């Protein structure tokens, strides 16, 4: 194990559930300190990838190394350095919030004294102080997810997997969760974060892998992904009158990839370029069509996903 070893290194992983190929020659490398996003629609293989890495699932091909060492079902030395926040809230219904966190922490930390501190910190971290003696059933969806997180991170792991931690969570809890994850990364943890919400991944992650049908479609920072696909902004203009001549003029612009006129709203998808908005407005001026409001939206990861896979990321 050297300092250069990636924290996570997956090579050529193939996982089948009977006929379904859930991971199709899947590769993944994550470096120390990254907040790495696995972005893909439901069923794209995110959870399967995590469970294979954690050796909960058998796979027919491929290798998994953590910190440069092969990961096996009995690699307890490696397992002790990992935290996992599973997609389903997995806690004991009969234990209180505090007891749950303490129990899951005890799978990693033997000394009760040290654990008390860690549990206190975890409770404060997820903001469940006033609910510490509640049973999980009494918690709202968002609070239960926070408990799920606390159970995964109390032992201060170096590598933490978050599997869709914000699904079905109110906006307030969601923001708290995202802020918390940033804090963990600041404290030096490496994060693997899966989601099918692109905004979230774009906001949070330092690097992103776009997944589809068990394959990695693209990897990079959000900016790199957008740059690689060559899509530019989407311009939307409210025309004074619906005019086909205006649409024709726009379609003639070299950077126009697609343009539509719906009522008096003109939508233009542009290729990457620095002059797009100016060009569109200039063309409208040239044909003498007046306009009111103008919007320009930078490309989103959804556009990138659409470009790469031909399907929408949103459900």
């Amino acid at each position: 194990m050297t300092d250069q070893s990636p924290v996570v290194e997956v090579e050529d992983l193939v996982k089948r559930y009977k006929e379904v190929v859930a991971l199709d020659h899947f590769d993944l490398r994550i470096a120390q300190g990254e907040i790495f996003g696995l972005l893909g629609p439901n069923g794209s293989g995110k959870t399967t990838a995590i469970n294979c890495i954690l050796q909960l699932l058998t796979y027919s091909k491929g290798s998994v190394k953590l910190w440069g060492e092969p990961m096996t079902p009995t690699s307890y030395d490696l397992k002790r350095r990992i935290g996992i926040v599973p997609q389903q809230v997995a806690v004991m219904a009969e234990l209180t919030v505090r007891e749950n966190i303490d129990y899951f922490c005890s799978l990693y930390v033997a000394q009760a004294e040290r654990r008390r501190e860690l549990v206190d910190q975890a409770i404060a971290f997820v903001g469940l102080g006033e609910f510490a003696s509640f049973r999980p059933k009494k918690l709202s969806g968002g609070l239960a997810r926070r408990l799920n997180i606390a159970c995964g991170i109390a032992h201060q792991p170096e590598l933490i997997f978050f599997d869709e931690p914000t699904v079905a969570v109110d906006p307030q809890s969601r923001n708290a969760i995202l802020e918390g994850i940033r804090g963990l990364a600041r404290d030096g943890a490496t994060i693997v974060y899966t989601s099918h919400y692109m905004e979230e991944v774009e906001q949070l992650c330092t690097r992103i892998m776009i997944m589809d049908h068990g394959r990695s479609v693209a990897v990079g920072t959000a900016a790199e992904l957008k740059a690689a696909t060559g899509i530019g902004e989407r311009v939307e203009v409210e025309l004074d009158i619906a005019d086909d001549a205006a649409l024709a003029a726009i379609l003639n612009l070299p950077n126009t990839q697609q343009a539509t006129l719906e009522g008096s709203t003109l939508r233009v998808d542009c290729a990457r370029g620095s002059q797009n908005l100016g060009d569109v407005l200039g063309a409208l001026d040239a044909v003498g069509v007046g306009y009111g409001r103008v919007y320009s939206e930078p490309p989103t990861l959804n556009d990138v996903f659409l470009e790469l896979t031909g399907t929408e990321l949103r459900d």
Partner: protein
Amino acid sequence: MNAFTCSLKTLARDKSTTAWAFLFPLVLCSLFYIAFTGLDDAMGQPVDVVVVDDAAYRAAPGLSETVDAVSSGDDQWLVVKYAPNAKEADHLVAHGDGKYYGYLAVSPSGEVEYHRDWRERPGLDAGNEVVAAVVDSYLQTAAFIAAHPGATVAQAPEFTKAVQLTANPPSDEVRYFYSALGFATMMVSIFATTGVARLRSGRSHVGARIAVGGLPRYRVLAPTVGAAYVLAFGTLVIGLVYVRYVLGVEFGGRETGILAILAVGAAATTAFGAAVAVLPLASGALMGLSAGISCLLSLFAGLYGPGSQELADSTAEAAPWFTWLNPAREMYDAFFSVYCYDSFDQAALILVRLALLALVLFGLAAFGMRRLRHEHI
């Protein structure tokens, strides 16, 4: 909280588990109590019978002395009404408004026959058993007299022994509470089933979470099974205390022996519950399976009364090995051997067999739980 206290708390707080393992046997014991205390009263009362006092009766060696002995004194078993012949006796029984349980007569060939009254009444079975016990003890005495020509009943010290061949004559009541304790010991297997089922990485979200944790498998499994055992044994101790001190059932001073049997029996059924938990079924189904098998094994242990007893005895004859695999039956036998005999030897042998069974079942459970990785979860 370590794995042991966690299991202790989760299992004790799990409502359906405690209902099946704890309340159910307790309710059962109380029902037995209500059903059989009347019966026990019948056991304590002398039984009214008619005796045909004819030539054959007087010719039967020692019979009239035996009947006299048990129909007088403090420890009176029978209240005897004499009739000159069988016809008269039959008439008395038939028209005695249920006062007489039946009549005793000696056939011309010298055999003692008991003609019971078949009409239903409270305590009928118990009353007839008392008469049967008297006849038994007479036959023993007769055999003694035959073997020692010239001896009379008064000289036969075995007579009193013959009535009490065992250290404690088993009463119906005690027998049913042994059945209840045996059944309860089977049912407490549910603690282990629930506890271990939750650890399965392939079928429970919590189990998967525990499997990716930093503790080796045995450090998770052993404390859970240990906690299940503590709860199982604790439940049985509470049950025993309840039966002994709340219901006031006497176990003839054999409480320590009974505790030892419960301790080993709980280990065997906890192991059984753990072994059930590794079967590839949904967790809810496992608990039903544990309860179901417990009921079935109890049936084959004869814990549900005479019908079930016959089934158990014929099964034990046809397949003795099945008895060794059935903790319910082993426990029932062990209870009786400490209750009836002064020596603990036979019970000890049964307990060794039970302990071996526990080890084998624990082994199976550990084997089933060693697997962390699954085809799908």
